[in-house]
């Protein structure tokens, strides 16, 4: 069974997924960061493939991507770093990246690499749902890899239903009309949107991401979805002084218990 499905079968709430940029802060840090995240209690890790032009990202992830590319990170190198990852990692792993680097590798080769390295899912923000359905869905199914699609507050109910039907593993609920980046609080208009989605009883579980940064925002998100995704706030922590282990331990504790 795909590890994402197993996670959602076994754990009903408070699912914490953490986004990292591959090759950041150091070129070879990624496997160690994933291990530490698992050890301190993250339920899932999204490994970001750095891209020169990350359209949907705010300053923190832009900067980490630029550092990672400067360090020499490439998609090929990332797969070679992930070759042994399943020796000691049992939580679900998701690759997140923009379409262009994936297309340059070739979708089929990319998915073969995903399945050889034990990835469970993929998120490609600029792959439109209709293109996915028409051109790539069969490839994903063949390799047993989930594609999680995004929904936003401005989408109509029809579109949300359609995206949820296409989405594998979980649905990525973008918390607000925004690029990625930590926000201090969750507004009332966002809560209304979360409630609207809850009532729709969609066929896949949802995780809320974008702007989740703290114990407060994480707990609020978890009231309305199965869990939440933290990106920029964690990347910011990784960029600070101190040992990776300690920073990661302290960060996860601060999210879980405040």
């Amino acid at each position, binding site marked *: 069974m795909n590890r994402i499905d197993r996670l959602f079968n076994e754990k009903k709430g408070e699912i914490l997924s953490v986004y990292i940029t591959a090759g950041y802060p150091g070129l070879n840090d990624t496997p160690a960061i994933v291990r530490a995240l698992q050890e301190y209690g993250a339920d899932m890790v999204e490994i970001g493939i750095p*891209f020169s032009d990350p359209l949907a990202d705010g300053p923190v992830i832009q900067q980490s991507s630029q550092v990672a590319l400067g360090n020499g990170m490439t998609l090929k190198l990332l797969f070679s770093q992930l070759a042994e990852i399943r020796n000691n990692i049992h939580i679900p792993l998701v690759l997140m990246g923009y379409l*262009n680097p994936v297309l340059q590798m070739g979708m089929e080769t990319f998915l073969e690499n995903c399945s050889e390295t034990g990835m469970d899912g993929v998120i490609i923000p600029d792959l439109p749902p209709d293109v996915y359905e028409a051109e790539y869905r069969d490839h994903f199914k063949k390799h047993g890899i989930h594609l999680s699609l995004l929904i*936003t507050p401005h989408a109509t109910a029809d579109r949300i239903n359609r995206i949820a039907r296409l989405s594998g593993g979980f649905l990525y609920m973008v918390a607000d009309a925004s690029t990625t980046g930590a926000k201090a609080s969750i507004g009332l208009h966002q809560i209304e949107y979360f409630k609207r989605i809850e009532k729709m009883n969609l066929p896949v579980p949802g995780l809320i991401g974008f702007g989740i940064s703290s114990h407060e925002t994480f707990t609020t998100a978890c009231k309305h979805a199965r869990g939440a995704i933290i990106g920029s706030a964690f990347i910011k922590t990784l960029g600070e002084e101190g040992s990776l282990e300690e920073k990661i331990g302290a960060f996860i504790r601060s999210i879980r218990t405040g």
Partner: protein
Amino acid sequence: MNFEVDQRGFYGDFGGAYIPEMLYPNIRELEDNYLKIIESDQFRDEFGQLLRDYAGRPTPLFRAGRLSEHYGTHIYLKREDLNHTGAHKINNTIGQILLARHLGKERIIAETGAGQHGVATATVCALSGMHCIVYMGALDVERQAPNVKKMKMLGAEVVPVHSGNKTLKDATNEAIRDWINHPVDTHYIIGSVVGPHPYPDMVTRFQSVISKEIKVQLAEKTGRHYPDYLVACVGGGSNAAGAYYHFLNDERVKLISVEAAGMGVNSGLTAATSLLGSTGIIHGSKTLLLQDGDGQIKEPYSLSAGLDYPGVGPLHAWLAQSGRATVFAVTDEEALQAALMCARKEGIIPALETAHALAVLDKLKFGQDDTVVVNLSGRGDKDMETYIDKLGF
């Protein structure tokens, strides 16, 4: 062959709307409305009137006698340089500001490289009393100080972009990010025939007034409504798309697209996108672009800031791939010499971008009875510092 955009927003293999879901409502609203609005009588009246009374259209088609003599053929210059603000860019910004108003938008954003599109956008925003924010790479803000001041005088807010390489590509990323964060009240006036569908088609339609006029003016001057050669420079490709539009299906017209070779096509410092590029996704469009083997987008180089874009509009990728257009690349040096020749022979100082189109005249063999139209996309005022520096006046 078909050169109109199809239902899905494609020209052959190129185009589409590869956008994050956060942009879907914005793009969907445009896609659902742009044709309805721009084909309405009211819009046509407003657009036609502003092009005439504000931009100064129709722009003349001028028979360049001394250049014709030099090249032993008949050369005509389509004088887009005589438009208000000095280039074809205003055709598009007038169209888009009217569209924005019809859509009920209150806030306008734009990207700019050299500042020409930024100035053209700031201009129409002043004209319509709209709030205008222009994203510009921090490096370009330094390199193009006079245009930055113009935008400010026109009331626009200029936001320097410090991400990436701090140039046009990054300014475009930042404008798109702004639009993601302001999905309801904001219209994004993109500056060329690039970006997600429907932008390439919409901007092409606004620029198509260029070829509409060429047809009429050529018939008046030569008794024939089409040229043998139609020459234009291509950055993103908007002046070329406008000059080609009404001739796309007329195979008698040879379309000559000129890209910036920078220091040379194989020098590594170049913007020869369709010659060197491969298929990929940039700013929401599947097109030819400069990228490395890992799919990272490369920074282009040209002395001319308006040709310094790593991609090309999807229509041009299709024109190049299908062989409908022939693509040439012209170096910085060749463009500078062509600018000098145009100044000395015709008394017209062209924009450095336009000078690339003029330089290709040296690379083609014309018959003495051929009619050659060069789209003179802009004037050289903005490039005087470069000309003074490089040509040593």
